[in-house]
């Protein structure tokens, strides 16, 4: 009965109640749409991460290749290839006994016979679009069909499953015999990288970043015209309602708005879903049908949101005592104290100090996380105090009725004024921090080796004992160098394996290995000084030296160009010359393409040195892809786990990842600002309705509406701008130590990109413009002919 009364109050309560209901419903609808979108993307991410990871398949060691001895099994060679920076998953398989049941790869009807292959739809498209010798020639045979989605993470995945003869596969290093194909999800792979964890972390932060402004929005909407509502509740109390009945009435009202909002949100989400599926939030798109909340999630939202709203309504009534004569605030808000800045300062201090102490050392993740959390909480805690400070300052500095009125109110109720700004603070902070770090890292990467390495392709074979794969024996090395050298406009640096290496000393190392500290046991490679001279970024030998030993491991394997850069130069005049028997005194080969050089390379090879890796500079992208295609058999035979990539491409992989992080972060920031803007509008509307009486009186006594509008705008804009400023400062404060820690020595100071300015600046502007939409309400509500007071 009381519930019914509550519904009647909110449904038949006249225009004001209807506006309130509509605002609450709209706010909740927005929130629900955002929530469902996040959940849908997270689901898509989870479903995709949980697909059977056939790539994780491991096999038995290739002991002796007793063909046919392992019944029913297949030979399996899986590696990564790439085209123009896009990774290609490549699987070469050979069915050992066509009569026996072979292990099945999901998405492929049966393992392809030799000379047939399956490719994913995206790869098929790409193959058709680019010249044969750049891509299609890498897959021998005829296309048997398309790889189905069971094997793919999304419609953009490039995957090839190539059928080979057992003999061909036995010749490739890295081939294993496989009985069953792995079906566990990638996340459970012991060899899995931390990308999944990174994304889950990201979704977590996104969720927090979004939930705060959403709660603020819904909270503000339910608090709309609270004073008037509480006066009504007092009247109902006078008629004999118990406090509990008042709670029921209030929660009925809140639950109704929330239910309408949740339903509208579900409908709105259906409209947004197609667009959402097209967003490459992790760099490649998900299959559209997995970007969806589950039925239980829908149910939880539709049932949970009204319940939560009802609970929140009851909770917000705890602070007021509704007597039959009226509502009394239980506590008078005290002015916020200066201690409120302490958490923020502590967080910034922690971040700038201990978390990143020691240049070049990895940051302490626990301290860094604690610092971040402190900063985020600190921003919200410090906000009211800063608002009050700014308001007092403004009141002192300015004349004019509007400024004075606005400053008075801000100074009197800084907490209320700041409440609707919380979301903006978080959004601006996260956005600024991410947008401050990412461009610096990205530009820093491409500045590695002063940018001269960007077009250089690194092709590691067996570059170290512990590395998978074997170095190319002298004969194969000759062949390869000749083949690569035949392409026009190509510069090559062959890197040979040193045959005699020392064991590491047992005692602690005399210095930290790096430029300026070269310990002989680490110097596993030999290069010719003439060849090296063509790659000045890598360093130079002392005059007169013909070949030196050096450590190229970091250069060949690191996926982080910043750490590559930190390791340059690899060779300097103090580098030991290669001792006799390891190529010293011989021209180790230059591979510049003419016969004489090839002969020299042969001389080195005959010296017993096998090829650990080559660096190839080719400025023409088409030539590069042609070289990559011709390298494919060599890489396969060596069994190297690394694919030939230019340093720009290495940087690109990381950049793509970082860009994704930035894009996701900015998307969240934009969304958050939108939500926060709506919260702001609701707060403004609420503030106007709440102060209808004094505003009307001001207007009756001759204050122009313009002045009143200015009061409202100032009241809102001051906390918003102040919050944005402080949050942006905190964001840069966080970005600074991170950039420093990464020690990007040659990185130009990169300013946040256009995306940041557009999202954060534009978002703030939009939020403020949304506030202007509340001004007609002010005009209307305070119209003198409306001046009827109860």
């Amino acid at each position, binding site marked *: *009965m*009381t519930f*019914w*009364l509550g519904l*009647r*109050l909110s449904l*038949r*309560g*006249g225009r*004001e*109640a209807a506006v309130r209901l509509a605002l609450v419903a709209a706010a909740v609808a927005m929130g629900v749409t955002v929530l469902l979108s996040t959940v849908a993307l997270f689901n898509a991410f989870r479903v995709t991460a949980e697909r059977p990871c056939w790539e994780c398949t491991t096999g038995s060691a290739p002991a002796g290749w007793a063909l046919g001895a392992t019944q029913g099994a297949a030979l399996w060679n899986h590696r990564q290839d790439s085209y123009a920076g896009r990774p290609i998953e490549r699987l070469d398989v050979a069915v050992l006994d066509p009569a026996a049941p072979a292990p099945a790869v999901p998405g492929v009807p049966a393992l392809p016979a030799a000379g047939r292959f399956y490719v994913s739809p995206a790869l098929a498209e790409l193959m058709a679009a680019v010249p044969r010798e750049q891509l299609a020639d890498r897959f021998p045979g005829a296309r048997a069909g398309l790889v189905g989605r069971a094997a793919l993470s999304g419609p953009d995945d490039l995957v090839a499953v190539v059928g080979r003869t057992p003999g061909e596969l036995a010749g490739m290093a890295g081939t294993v015999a496989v009985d069953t194909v792995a079906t566990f999800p990638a996340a459970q792979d012991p060899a899995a990288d931390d990308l999944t964890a990174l994304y889950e972390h990201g979704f977590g932060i996104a969720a927090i970043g979004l939930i705060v402004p959403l709660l603020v929005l819904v909270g503000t909407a339910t608090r709309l015209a609270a004073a008037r509502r509480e*006066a*009504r509740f*007092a*009247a*109902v*109390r*006078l*008629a*004999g*309602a*118990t*406090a*509990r*009945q008042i709670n029921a009435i209030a929660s009925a009202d809140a639950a109704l708005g929330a239910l309408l909002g949740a339903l509208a949100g579900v409908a709105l989400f259906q409209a947004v879903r197609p667009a959402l599926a097209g967003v490459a939030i992790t760099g490649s798109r998900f299959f559209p049908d997995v970007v969806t909340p589950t039925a239980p999630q829908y149910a939880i939202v539709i049932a949970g949101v009204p319940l939560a709203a009802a609970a929140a309504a009851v909770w917000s009534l705890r602070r007021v005592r509704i*007597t*039959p*004569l*009226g509502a009394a605030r239980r506590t008078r808000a005290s002015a916020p104290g200066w201690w409120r800045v302490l958490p923020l300062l502590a967080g910034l201090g922690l971040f700038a100090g201990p978390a990143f102490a020691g240049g070049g050392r990895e940051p302490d993740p626990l301290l860094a996380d604690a610092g971040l959390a402190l900063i985020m909480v600190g921003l919200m805690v410090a906000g009211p105090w800063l608002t009050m400070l700014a308001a007092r300052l403004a009141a002192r500095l300015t004349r004019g009725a509007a400024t004075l009125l606005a400053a008075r109110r801000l100074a009197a109720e800084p907490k209320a004024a700041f409440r609707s700004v919380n979301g903006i603070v978080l959004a601006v902070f996260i956005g600024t921090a991410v947008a401050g770090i990412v461009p610096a890292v990205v530009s820093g990467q491409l500045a590695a080796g002063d940018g001269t390495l960007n077009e250089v392709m690194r092709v590691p074979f067996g570059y170290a004992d512990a590395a998978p794969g074997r170095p190319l024996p002298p004969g194969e090395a000759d062949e390869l160098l000749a083949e690569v050298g035949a392409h026009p406009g190509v510069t090559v640096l062959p890197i040979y394996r040193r045959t005699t290496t020392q064991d590491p000393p047992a005692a602690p190392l005399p210095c930290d290995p790096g430029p300026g500290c070269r310990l002989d046991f680490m110097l596993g490679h030999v290069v010719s000084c003439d060849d090296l001279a063509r790659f000045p970024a890598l360093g130079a030998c002392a005059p007169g030296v013909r070949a030196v030993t050096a450590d190229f491991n970091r250069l060949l394997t690191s996926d982080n160009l910043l750490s590559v850069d930190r390791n340059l130069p690899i060779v300097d005049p103090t580098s030991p010359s290669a001792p006799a028997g390891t190529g010293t005194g011989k021209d180790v080969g230059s591979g510049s393409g003419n016969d004489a050089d090839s002969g020299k390379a042969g001389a080195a090879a005959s010296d017993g040195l096998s090829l650990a890796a080559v660096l190839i500079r080719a400025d023409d992208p088409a030539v590069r892809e042609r070289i990559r295609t011709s390298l494919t058999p060599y890489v396969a035979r060596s069994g190297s786990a690394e694919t030939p990539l230019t340093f720009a491409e290495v940087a690109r992989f990381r950049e793509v990842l970082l860009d994704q992080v930035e894009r996701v972060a900015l998307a969240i920031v934009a969304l958050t600002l939108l939500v926060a803007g709506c919260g702001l509008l609701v707060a403004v509307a609420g503030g106007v309705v709440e102060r209808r009486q004094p505003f009307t009186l001001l207007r009756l006594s001759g204050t122009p509406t313009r002045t009143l509008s200015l009061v409202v705008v100032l009241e809102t804009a001051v906390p918003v701008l102040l919050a944005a400023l402080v949050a942006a400062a905190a964001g840069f404060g966080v970005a600074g130590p991170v950039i420093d820690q990464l020690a990007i020595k040659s990185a130009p100071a990169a300013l946040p990109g256009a995306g940041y300015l557009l999202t954060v600046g534009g978002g703030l502007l939009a939020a403020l413009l949304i506030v202007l939409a509340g001004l007609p309400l002010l005009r209307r509500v305070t119209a003198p002919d409306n001046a009827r007071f*109860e």
Partner: protein
Amino acid sequence: MTIDALPAPGPLLRADSISRSYGRTPALREASLSVTAGEILAIMGPSGSGKSTLLHCLAGIFTPDTGQVWFDGHRLDTLGDAGRSRLRRTAFGFVFQFGQLVPELTAADNVALPLLLGRTGRRHAYQRARGWLERLELDGLGERRTGELSGGQAQRVAIARALVTRPKVIFADEPTGALDSLAGEKVMDLLVGLARQEGVTVIVVTHDSRVAACADREVIVRDGKVTDPYADEYAGEAVR
């Protein structure tokens, strides 16, 4: 006989040297007052003397700081919130100067409100509400929002609501304070006439001597103290 029970017949409502202050402002000082069933009592006195405070204490809206309030043989000042809410819903009616109606609800809704808050069925509640609106000459206005009624009409709705639960006491605080004399007279006539018909006790706080003239008896409040010839007669003893 328990200490909390007062045998009938005695005064229906009695205040026993109650004091009440707002912070450091004393509003009532040891005020005592007795009201018999069916009586119509006017409380008069200068502004700020504590009339409203006394009324609120008698109605159980306020609890006095010291002293006791008895209603129908039971202590009122020690009753919990739920019990006092029930009394407001079943035994008391209120007519204030303004603010006792929910302006967004219709006149019928407002009158039916105490019944709805109780366990009365909706149909029955509205039936009774309409009956009372008719008796207060408000036929046809039942579907109007009370925020859209004239002051006199709104006060009559308030009276209808006060009477709809067949209460024992109606507390009225300046019921005509916001009305012109004609409308005020009509409101008072209806209130007093219906109260006498129904045998309801009415305690009315007023400045207006014409309002007071409708009453059976009047007491004066001055500086938080009540001048009431009957009060002494009851003071300290339980039985008349």
